């Protein structure tokens, strides 16, 4: 394991204002994740794990504290430049897949490359290759609503990885899948991450899922307890 962390969280505090009351969601999270690690964050719903993931991925800003990815302080990156940063460093896998319904499997998978400005031929080649690895080589032209949950999540995995980002964030990636598919998807996700030398930070409430990681971090009430 390389000594330099790829992701550092420093004293992350997040408060929401609900009406006149301030609600504390994260109460000072400190975490180092090293290059090549597969880390699971385990916690019950409402413990703040998703909020932490969003903050770590730069989708939300913390009230206080720093996220440092590969030496870059996220709070110093403007909202405008954040998209370019995300393209390069971050892949995201959602619980509800979040594919674009009007686009077919291939188009969804290669969408990040469209924003990157990669020529069509090149990106379609890459997409085809990656979707074949994901076991969807014969479903390239299918729309998401013609595919099963597992198949949709495979597209989502391909999309998260297509730009070869340093770190993949997965928010309950198997939350909507049955146990057999869950196993398949997790194995696929982790093996691909390892093959590409990427880092994975996964959030789940399911211990079985969390066990797939190298390291399990438990969260309760906005704090890391283990």
């Amino acid at each position, binding site marked *: 394991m390389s000594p330099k962390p790829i992701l550092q969280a420093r004293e992350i505090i997040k408060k929401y204002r609900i009406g006149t009351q301030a609600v504390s969601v994260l109460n000072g999270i400190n975490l180092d994740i090293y290059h090549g690690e597969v880390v699971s964050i385990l916690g019950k719903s409402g413990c703040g794990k998703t909020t932490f993931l969003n903050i770590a991925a730069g989708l939300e800003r913390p009230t206080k504290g720093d996220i440092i990815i590969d030496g870059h302080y996220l709070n110093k990156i403007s909202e405008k430049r954040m998209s370019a940063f*995300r393209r390069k460093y971050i892949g995201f896998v959602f619980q509800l897949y979040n594919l674009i319904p009007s686009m077919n499997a291939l188009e969804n998978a290669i*969408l990040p490359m*469209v924003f990157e400005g990669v020529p069509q031929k090149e990106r379609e080649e890459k997409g085809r290759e990656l979707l074949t690895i994901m076991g969807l080589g014969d479903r390239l032209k299918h729309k998401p609503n013609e595919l099963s949950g597992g198949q949709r999540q495979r597209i989502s995995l391909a999309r998260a990885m297509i730009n070869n980002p340093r770190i993949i964030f997965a928010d309950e990636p198997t939350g909507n899948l049955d146990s057999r598919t869950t196993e398949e998807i997790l194995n696929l996700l982790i093996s691909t991450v390892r093959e590409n030398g990427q880092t994975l930070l996964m959030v789940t409430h399911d211990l079985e899922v969390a066990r797939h990681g190298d390291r399990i971090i438990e969260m309760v009430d906005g704090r890391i307890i283990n």
Partner: protein
Amino acid sequence: MRKRDLLLMANKNLWRRKARTILTCLGVVIGTASIVVMISLGIGLRVSMEKSMAQWGSLNIINVHPGMRYDENGNPTGEEKRMTDETVEELKAIPGVTAVSPVYNIDGEAQLGRKKGYLSIVGIDPAAMEELEFTVSHGRLLTPEDRFAIVAGSQVINNFWDERAARRGGGMMGEGPQQQDPAELLEQRIRLTIRNQAGNERKQNLFVVGILDETNMDRSWQVYGSIHDIKRMRDFMMQGANSSKQMLGPMAKEVIISGGGVMVSTGRASGSRGNRREDRSNDYNSIMVRTKDVAQTKEISKELRERGYNAWSMADSLEGIENTSRTMQAILGGIGGITLFVAALGITNTMIMSIYERTREIGIMKVIGASFADIRSIFLMEAALIGLFGGILGLGLSYGASEIINRISADYIQRGMGGPATNISVIPVWLAGFALVFSIFIGLAAGLYPASRAIRVSPMVAIRNE
């Protein structure tokens, strides 16, 4: 993001909601078509007016006459200008003038075979004829070598009538003058009778070498000869005028030294002749000036008047017409503009609805790396495409409407006046181009606000698992 991807993505997004996109486009179609048709009517009006004016005289020619200029109250302004060789040289020196010819006019009785008539002869410089926009339908123009050759206007033939034939067919009076073929005059000999102020008579044979075409109705009743020939005839006619004024008897009155076919009454010029000591018998009747184009004509004509010349050209009257048509175009275009403005509101509305529907999609795109510029471009492109599609279809509709308007009006004009039909709706290329660019611009402008809303969508909306 590449331009091609942007275009394809925006186009695809639009057609996800076909009915809505088509309806929004329809607004632009109607807006564009109404602007284009309205402006085309304004243009058509001007073009047809210009055309009918050009029939009455070339828009590039200025006629300069002797005599005083008078202001609105009838008071003479400045000194009387004479038409001499110096004047010709002065006019030639004006930039933008391409040709100048001095002009002598004489009138006289004429005979063409058995037919009798009269001729109004204009002597000009044969070398400048072509430059002065003389064009023949038969025969040729004059050359400097011609002696007592003439080119006749298209209507000159109708100046001649066969007295005996007229007596025979007295009952045909009601039918008015018979139109005769102008070409009949070609290569005919016309015998002109001129009398001088001393009461002597002289006959002169003139040979018709060409017939003018009908582009310029101002010239259709006159014949044109070399200025040297006309000068000799004129010299003969002037004999005795200076020696004895008393000889201006009834005989001499038949010889009218007219001051050009157009405006200025010679009464003034010849009246003042007697009062002055200097000899003006060699002064020209007028001077014809050709300029490069209509714009120059207007300018030079104005300048000549400022210099004190009695200058006039067809193009001068154009200004008023142009002002009228500009006002017409502004009013008509304004009506179309309102329609297009409403269409723009439609685009904005459609885009805002579309953004509501696609909020989650926008969030997803942001999470996976779409930049602000990408999101803005996608929505602006969609709006611009609505504008473009609407513009293209609207332009097509305009051409159709223009065609129909022209057919109906041509029918109407032909039944009503029997005149030549001119298009009252004209769509020049620049108007078509303008319409397209403008409709795209309207789309873009209408898309600005929705696009700025799309940018503000938080990537968090994609994360929420509801």
